[in-house]
């Protein structure tokens, strides 16, 4: 079965794809922290920050249509949070942009700021995931000192989430094939809980089989891997550009646009 893989462009080749995963990860982490710390009323500086991830996506050859589709997929969670702002903060506010004047409330301003920060940080995150193979990202995290157990868990999550989605899809198909009428809320709920239970039990079964496969190949509790990561000149150049870009915006441009 084909899934909408979030990392489906990670196997391409470009200047950005060839960069060390650790450099990209740290850059995205710092970038996200900076964007989050921006004032809630400043939208123009957000637009300037968006230039960075946009450049990464373009240089990495990631189609923007794919990027916005991914953002839309996760947007409902943030939309609920952002759209609640105008309801509780109705302080009047006037914003002038050249000849245009907008009269609204502080709540709406915060709503736009949350959405703006969400889009800009998601651009950076998608830029990272779409230009870095997941195993390189895991190897990078391990080299950065993230606990091995957490890295292993992330690896298993990435490997088996698709297997689990397939199984859930098959169960849903089996239900749809035999569900000939509306069963009512209570029975639907009972069916849903049975389906979740079935998935859970099959997951335990899979976990036992994986344990056998691991032990059968000599696993003794110590995780061994071959790291292919290497910091090169291109990585240092990227780090320098990223740091300069963020510092210039944060130290010089932000005070002007605020």
């Amino acid at each position, binding site marked *: 079965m084909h*899934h909408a893989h979030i990392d489906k462009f990670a*196997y391409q080749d470009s200047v950005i794809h060839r960069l060390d995963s650790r450099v990209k990860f740290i850059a995205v982490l710092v970038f996200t922290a900076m964007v989050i710390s921006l004032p809630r009323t400043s939208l123009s500086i957000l637009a300037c920050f968006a230039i960075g991830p946009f450049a990464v996506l373009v240089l990495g050859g990631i189609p923007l249509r794919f990027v916005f589709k991914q953002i839309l997929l996760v947007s409902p969670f943030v939309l609920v949070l952002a759209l609640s702002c105008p309801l509780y903060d109705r302080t009047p506010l006037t914003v002038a942009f050249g000849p245009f004047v907008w009269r609204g409330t502080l709540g709406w301003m915060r709503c736009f700021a949350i959405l703006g920060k969400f889009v800009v940080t998601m651009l950076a995150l998608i830029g990272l995931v779409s230009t870095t*193979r*997941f*195993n390189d990202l*895991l190897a990078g995290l391990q080299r950065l000192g993230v606990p091995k157990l957490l890295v292993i868990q992330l*690896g*298993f999550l*990435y*490997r*088996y989430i*698709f*297997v689990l989605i397939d199984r859930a899809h098959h169960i849903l198909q089996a239900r749809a094939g035999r569900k000939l009428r509306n069963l009512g809320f209570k029975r639907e709920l009972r069916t849903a809980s049975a389906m979740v239970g079935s998935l859970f039990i099959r997951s335990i079964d*899979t976990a036992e*089989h*994986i344990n*056998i*496969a*691991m*032990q*059968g*190949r*000599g*696993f*003794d509790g110590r995780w*061994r*891997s*071959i790291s292919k990561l290497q910091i090169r000149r291109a990585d240092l150049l990227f780090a320098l550009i990223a740091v300069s870009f963020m510092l210039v915006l944060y130290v010089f441009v932000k005070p002007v646009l605020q």
Partner: protein
Amino acid sequence: MSKAIEIENFSYGYPDGTMALSEIKLSIEHGQKVVLIGPNGAGKSTLLLTMAGFIKGTGKVFVDGLEVNRKNLKNIRTCLGSCLENPDDQLFMPTLFDDVAFGPLNMRLDVEQVKKRVAEALQTVGLAAMADKAPHHLSAGQKRAAAIATILSMTPKIITLDEPDGSLDPRNRNNLINLLTGLTQTLIIATCNMNFAAAIANRAVLMDKGRIIADGDAKEIMSDFKLMSEHGLEVPTARD
């Protein structure tokens, strides 16, 4: 010279009292290609797990002369590679390279040796160009071949495979037959597909209800219509 597998009066029962294996006596020489045939629930998979030391019962099991016990487990799992029924259970790493390297790394080989073994194993199964692929990007046939590569990279003397032909189309099944017949290791394969079994093995062990019913020449056993029918099996139709 020690035998590849030697099982003496081995029995194993589930906690509810059902006997999964009863009084199993089996001896397999090095280099043999043996199929364990039998209906579902006959005990074939349980017997394969027993050989790899995952199941403890009464009786004795020897692998390459070593008794299957806690002390010998590491050596036994180095010389006996087990391939599970579902390749998704066998391929648990983010990339094919990592999966095939998992065993050799646990054998504490140096990095260059590990890389060499991975390259050789992937070459043998015809997946040399796919080392960096994630397992969920592989087709069913490729996953099956990749699962075998994870074992081959450990260069075991004995390989056990549980229903390796499951969910394969005829072309992939033929590729798998070619791959398995080309291997020099001792092969022990559990299967319900008699055509597949007939194409690979020279010896068949017929199991039912946890017991060995017949053991001998594969052609003779699988052409015995009465014996095969009694145990819910069919006579192969496309014999090579």
